[in-house]
């Protein structure tokens, strides 16, 4: 009996010690695959291996060339440490998952009593194992597994958001660099105009007042240039942060011109449906409903009797033989019947359900808004490119003829040129709006939804029907 009982107990204990090792990179390959599928970008988790060396080499060689938006995204993926830090969430979630699968350790109770009168001591031995763990561990594991899934979704989403952010920062910077160039040309034009004014003044042909009026124009244009330079510097630093670049890595240069508007308009069939189908956020919210459901099940199951300790105790009193018998500890649910925990879990579930619904509504309108922003920016940019800029150019060219015929002077000619460049500024702004909206659309396509005004919100999963016949 004693032997048999002890053997049985031993086997039980052995059975309860599961495979308890922790694999920290669990889930990362899945994330890598998801990111690659959704945004055509390779990610690497930097943990001091040979792979890291390879990534560093790649970053270096990318920084050598004039960067495109895609290059910038790839560099950031490989080189940004914030992103690397985010990957640690996976390790943490994995650790939680392993933890959840572990039984509570059995408790060995041993006491020895030496009688003052007798010769032989009394021995008391008891091994107590939490009996209900056997029932609850699978439940706990299910919760933790769901949480692990949630963590994977969260990390994937963060990576995709990050790529969109890099893309947006890149276009903002590219536009800013073009602005600097345009503002510099305006300064050049107005400075030339001022130079001629000074000569007229020196010849006695215009008054001090006229000269000061001309000068104020030229000087004001320099302030605009300074602002533009500062904007470009700021957006460059924003990009440096995202690229994870410092030191000599900050010497990168980018393509001087934003890509032109593609010849064919982008056709997205049923953008709302696509956005919902692809949305990672929606999966994430669904996952939260599952987790909350599991949590509720667990709470219900463990409400009345959260802990039952089952054990065996053995006793040998002095001079007598061993006495062996089972022992059990059960809390009596007189005061806490778990009703609060159940109610809490149920509320969590209801909240997750409402959030899921609200997110769906938001994704739909964001998708529609982004589509409209693309169409509008496209129309505006094309209008500037095909109508207004050629008209401005014609004004300058026709003005030159009128200047030749001495109908207008050099000042009018330079003013027309300035107006032409200002129209160029407006064009660059429209082009920038277009590519920012396109970055938002790409974010939607990758399964994340940007804010309606082009910030960050979330994602999704599914197939995107994009008619991308784009001539560059």
């Amino acid at each position, binding site marked *: 009996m004693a032997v048999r009982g002890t053997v049985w107990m031993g086997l039980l204990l052995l059975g309860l010690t599961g495979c308890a090792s922790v694999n920290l990179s669990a889930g990362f390959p899945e994330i890598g695959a998801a990111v690659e599928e959704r945004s055509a970008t390779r990610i690497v988790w930097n943990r001091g291996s040979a792979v890291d060396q390879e990534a560093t080499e790649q970053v270096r060689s990318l920084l050598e060339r004039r960067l495109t938006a895609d290059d910038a995204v790839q560099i950031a993926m490989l080189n940004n440490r914030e992103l690397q830090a985010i990957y640690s969430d996976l390790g943490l979630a994995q650790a939680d998952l392993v933890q959840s699968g572990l039984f509570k350790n059995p408790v060995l109770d041993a006491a020895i009593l030496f009688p003052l009168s007798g010769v032989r001591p009394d021995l008391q031995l008891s091994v107590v194992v939490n009996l209900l763990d056997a029932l609850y561990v699978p439940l706990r594991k299910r919760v933790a597994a769901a949480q692990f899934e949630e963590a994977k979704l969260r990390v994937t989403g963060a990576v995709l958001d990050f790529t969109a952010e890099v893309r947006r920062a890149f276009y903002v910077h590219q536009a800013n660099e073009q602005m600097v160039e345009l503002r510099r*040309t305006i300064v*050049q*034009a107005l400075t*030339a105009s001022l*130079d*001629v004014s000074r*000569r*007229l*003044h*020196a*010849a*006695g*042909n*215009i*008054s*001090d007042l006229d000269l000061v009026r001309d000068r104020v124009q030229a000087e004001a244009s320099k302030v605009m240039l300074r602002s533009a330079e500062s904007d470009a510097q700021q957006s460059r630093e924003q990009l440096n942060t995202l690229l994870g670049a410092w030191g000599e890595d900050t010497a990168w240069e980018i393509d001087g011109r934003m890509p032109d508007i593609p010849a064919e308009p982008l056709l997205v069939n049923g953008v709302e449906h696509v956005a919902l189908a692809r949305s990672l956020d929606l999966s994430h919210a669904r996952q939260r409903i599952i987790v909350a459901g599991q949590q509720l099940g667990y709470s219900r199951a463990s409400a009345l009797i959260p802990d039952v300790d089952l054990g065996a105790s053995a006793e040998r009193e002095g001079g007598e033989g061993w006495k062996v018998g089972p022992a059990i500890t059960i809390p009596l649910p007189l005061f806490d019947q778990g009703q609060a925990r159940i109610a809490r879990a149920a509320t969590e579930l209801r909240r997750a359900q409402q959030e899921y619904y609200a997110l769906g509504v938001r994704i739909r309108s964001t998708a529609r808004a982004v589509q409209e922003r693309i169409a509008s920016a496209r129309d505006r940019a094309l209008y500037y490119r095909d109508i207004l800029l050629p008209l401005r150019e014609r004004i*300058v060219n*026709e003005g*030159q*003829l*009128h*200047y*030749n*015929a*001495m*109908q*207008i*002077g*050099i*000042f*009018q*000619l*330079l003013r027309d*040129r300035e107006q032409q460049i200002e129209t160029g500024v407006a064009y660059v702004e429209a082009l920038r709006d277009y590519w920012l909206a396109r970055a938002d659309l790409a974010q939607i396509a990758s399964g994340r939804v940007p804010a309606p005004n082009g910030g960050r919100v979330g994602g999704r999963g599914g197939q995107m029907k994009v008619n991308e016949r784009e001539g560059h």
Partner: protein
Amino acid sequence: MANRLSRRQILGIGAGSVAAGAAWTEAGHSKSHNQPPGGRAKETGGRAYWQESYSGGPPNVAPLAPGLPGDHYKPVVVPNGAALPFKIVGGVKVFHLVAEEVDHAFDSGLRANCWGYNGRVNSTVIEAVEGERIRIYVTNRLPVATSVHWHGIYLPNGMDGVGGLTQPYVKVGETVKYEWTLRQYGSFMFHSHHDEMTQMGMGMIGMFIVHPRNPSPDYRVDRDFSLMISEWAVKAGTARPNTVEMTDFNVLTINGKVFPSTAPLVCKTGDRVRLRLGNLGAMDHHPMHIHGYHFRITATDGQDIPLSAQWPETTVLVAVGQTRNVEFVADAPGDWAFHCHMTHHVMNQMGHEFPNMVGVNPQGIDEKIRPLLPAYMTHGHTGMDMGKMAEVMPYPPNTISMKGATGPFGDYISMGGLFTIVKVRDDLASYEGDPGWYQQPSGTVALKANDDDLARDGIDVNDGAASPAPRSGGTGPPAPNRGHRH
């Protein structure tokens, strides 16, 4: 008094008879050349005298036979224009005046959509003879109603042509008949008298020349030119006169042309010359100036001026709405400029928004501006004379700004607008066409002085006082002009 009675009797005689013609001549011609006008001078209260009639007397006079060119008058010369043809129907001279849109060329490089008469702008002349009855049909092919006023002419009130006042409008597509007997002679005009600002600004003006019946020998000239002056606003690159413009007129024409398209006034040495000048421009009077001669101002659109009152002048002011006859004997051969002396009136399509560049140092401007405007070239710093460049530089379409013509010495005649040339020649095969440039006899042209002359006359060209040093470009205002230093 007796004079007036006899005149009335004469005018009562039936039309067309020789006797009447003669009588007319006597009466009519009593007012002509170098005679005091009809009516006796009465010294009363400081006033010289009142004429008997200021309107040619009673309107219903019996007309004389129509006058014919060659027989009764020597036709005027209309440079760049023509006299309106006529026919005689039942003793009446009949004209057909057509008001219509005309695609008009001010010059080879400048055309505009104008309005005019019988396919011409400013240069259709109606020519008639004192005493004849004329009938003028006016057909309106314009897109708007019009009317024709016979400027300076005595006629029945209902023939005066003031739209809305003396007659209904000549509506679009309508033909209206004007008819009266001419009871005067002189240089007159005709023009639209409905929405004048628009219609005259678009070109609805012309000269109306009436020759005297049986003129005295004094009236006869060898060259009798009819010149109508007008002004237009045709902005560079446009092709329609802007009739709303009130000050900025940039195209100034003689018979609808600007120099170098103004046909020269060709004369033989010794010719008696009459210039009949009319001005129906919108806002500007023109002091027309002749070189090499003086002329006498012999007539206005009212009357001949008695010899004792004629002004010897080199410049005659022709105000808006006036005609002036000037006469001279062309006894000095040469190419003599005849032009308005308002300097802005001898420019073609001057732009008035060009900054004052005169005296500006151009050095280095082009290099600064060409990166922004590759076709830029500084000009204006030596003035407005672009010379031949004005004809080769790319201009807006339909623009002749700064245009003049290359002269006999290869240099550019930097004038346009109200500028023409009286070409007087000893030998002249024909008055038709252009005899070319005048060849001055050797030694009679202002040329670069040679060293011998300078030495002989003690001219030191390097004498500092002769050429004050140019002001170097400072920053302050220019020094006040202290007068000439020569």
